[in-house]
């Protein structure tokens, strides 16, 4: 009985030392993209949208696959990363309302946008270089909820530490603009091995509010919505790169159409995204 008690005490002390040791381990996280280098990510997403018109529920689902390329032009004195991003692949498959459509969106491929990103992942500036035929602006980095680059902490963090992301991004969209307000809390929850990468596991959870106005086919569209974001990112601190991220965004939206048609469409949307570092 005594022996068993002893083993338990030793185990508890060991665990405490181990925990404290880990808690004391601090990380200074930053993106370490290098000038002249190209980085690629695959992004796969699935979305389920339910919209309602006249008391009738309509469902649509889609899955998309994109390959996003970052070409680093320069690193500023402050460590900001000046890069050009574009999509090598953009494919969507949409199903719903009696239609099943596969779209290989070639007009969006290769269209470049220059962005300045802080070493902690904040999008500081974006400028469209090439526009696609049907849109004056390309897909914006800041359009995606927490996707692409998670914000890293400004200070040193240890396991269990939290840091916030309070962002207010305005992006141009079809003769209008969308405003995304995010309030996300990141938590460094541990270490993980992803492939050959020794990663830090960062979990995040928060809210998203969006409002926007745009024009489509001569009609005015207004969109508002709010929702929840949650996910996990695996970051390689030595390489200074995001290795993988999985996130889910669930939004309740209202879309209003005025002009030649009048419509108010409530929509629920759930988007699951997986992003992986390729090279």
């Amino acid at each position, binding site marked *: 009985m005594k022996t068993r008690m002893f083993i338990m005490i030793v185990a508890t002390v060991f665990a405490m030392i181990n925990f404290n040791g880990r808690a004391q381990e601090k990380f200074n996280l930053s993106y370490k993209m290098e000038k002249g280098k190209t980085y690629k990510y695959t992004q796969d997403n699935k979305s389920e949208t*339910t919209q*309602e018109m*006249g*008391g*009738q*529920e*309509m*469902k649509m*689902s889609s899955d998309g696959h994109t390959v996003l390329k970052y070409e680093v032009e320069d690193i500023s004195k402050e460590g900001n990363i000046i890069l050009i991003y574009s999509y090598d692949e953009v494919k969507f498959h949409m199903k719903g309302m009696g239609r099943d459509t596969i779209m290989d969106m070639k007009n969006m491929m290769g269209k470049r946008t220059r962005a300045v990103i802080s070493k902690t992942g904040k999008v500081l500036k974006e400028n469209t270089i090439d526009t696609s035929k049907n849109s004056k602006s390309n897909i914006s980095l800041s359009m995606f909820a927490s996707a692409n680059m998670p914000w890293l902490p400004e200070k040193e963090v240890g396991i269990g530490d939290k840091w916030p992301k309070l962002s207010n991004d305005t992006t141009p969209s079809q003769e209008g603009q969308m405003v995304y307000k995010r309030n996300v809390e990141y938590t460094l929850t541990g270490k993980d091995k992803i492939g050959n990468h020794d990663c830090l596991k960062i979990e995040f959870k928060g809210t998203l509010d969006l*409002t926007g*106005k745009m024009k489509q*086919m*001569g009609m*005015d569209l*207004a*969109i*508002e919505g709010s*929702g*929840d974001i949650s996910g996990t990112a695996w970051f390689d601190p030595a390489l200074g790169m995001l290795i993988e991220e999985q996130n*889910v965004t*669930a939004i*309740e939206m*209202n*879309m*209003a*159409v*005025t*002009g*030649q*048609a*009048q*419509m*108010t*469409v*409530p929509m*629920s949307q*759930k988007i699951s995204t997986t992003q992986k570092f390729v090279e």
Partner: protein
Amino acid sequence: MKKLYGSFIYILFCILALAVAGCSGTQFSSGNGKILITPDFLSRQINYLASDSMKGRNTPSPQLDSAAAYIASNFKSWGLKPWNGSYFQEVPLCTDRLGDTNELSITRNGASFMLTIKSDYVPYDFSSSASVTAAVVFAGYGITAPEYNYDDYKGIDAKGKIVVIFRNEPQKDDSASVFMGREDTKYVALKEKMKNAIKHGAAGMLVVNGPMQYSSVKARGYPWPSLSKIIPKDAVPMHLFIDNEDQIPAMHIGEEVVKLLFGSVDSLQRMEQRIEKDLSCVSFELPGIKVSMHANILTDICKVKNVLGFIEGSDPVLSKQLVIIGAHYDHVGYKKEHKAGEDYIFNGADDNASGTSGVLSVAYAFSRLKEKPKRSIMFILFAGEEKGLFGSRYYTIHPLHPLASTVAMLNLDMISRNDPDSLYLEGAMQSPDLTNIIRKENKKTKFILVVKSSEFLGGSDHYYFYKHNIPFSFFFTGLHQDYHQVSDNPDKSDYNKAARVSRLVFFTAGKISNDNLQYTINPLENDAPLNE
């Protein structure tokens, strides 16, 4: 000079031809179609209806009323009869607003809780404007589906009570489910759920997102502009005003209401899981709880007009049967915000000044027949098609002639564009007899018929006639890049083609209206695509 001489010969020819047509006895004269339905006739009508002064004939608008008066005056001048003394059928439309006095409160074991609109509950647009205070029953998904041996109302008494139900239907992720897995059954519609609640005597309906199916248990209801910072007031769509519709107060509820009713979202989720597992009925009355609902929906009513002209059949028996030839005369109006000098009017020359003009030309040709057709013919120009097939739907709810003795409906929508020789026919599989008649009559007009079956089935005014099992055919020359653009102007219309389509309608209507046959109508379930 030559030109004048040519015109003189042409007029002489017309007079002779008219004389021949007038002497044609009881036989329907297709000659009228050739002579009277001319590109020039179509051009005049299209140019008038699609002129800038018509400002795009929006529903409702003074310009739509002007177009209605113009159509009616033509009918009158050509000798077509009104119906019960009028060339118009008024169509009541309405727009809903959220009133200021909506309330939802819950009394639980003697304690009262007042809920907040928008965050806790939102009334639906199809809710009645009424108050109710009653006990509450949880009724699963609110579905009674005998064919699936499923009934959420089994074992509960909902009479006079407020039902709380889930949105959607169970087992959405189970492809083997009787509820068709990811496909929706008819029971998914909230209006169906309201009908079922009323059938079971319920006095109010609260709808909640099931926590398993929806990631958020937020109140959403209807996007009322008064609850939004961004949704403009004029975004609320009009709908047909139906004054005798059965309704009860209906609201969408959020998490706070769920906690007050069920204790927690988890409790609600457990019930959802039990239904999900084996479609168990888990319905029950919530003890010690009373809910007060006050839904305050205000309705603004306006009226637009279907325009109609009548030709009474000559046969004492067959004249009781009706052939309808219709088109919509409305379009989508104009851009309120526009730059100086910018073309801002959606003139709708093809959509659907062309179809309207086609109907007018056919009416004119019929009005000039000396011997009237055996069956009666009603020419109807519908309002509100662009806003939701309102005019034609209203007509089928309030028909001026019994639908049971309406033998066919021919619909003309967008008949003046694309390849000069091609013509789409929608409804071939649904109305094979009519299609065969059109094929035969087309020997005179020589179109390459592209027979469609259901691509545009719900896209124009024939739809509600089809829903009432009336054989139909939809004459259509296809979409184009000016569709619903300000560039859909008369100069892009092919008047020759519009005249040819109208002649085919005239020949077809001539055949049908002198027939004594009933035509086949196949329900939608038997539909299959067919292209020629």
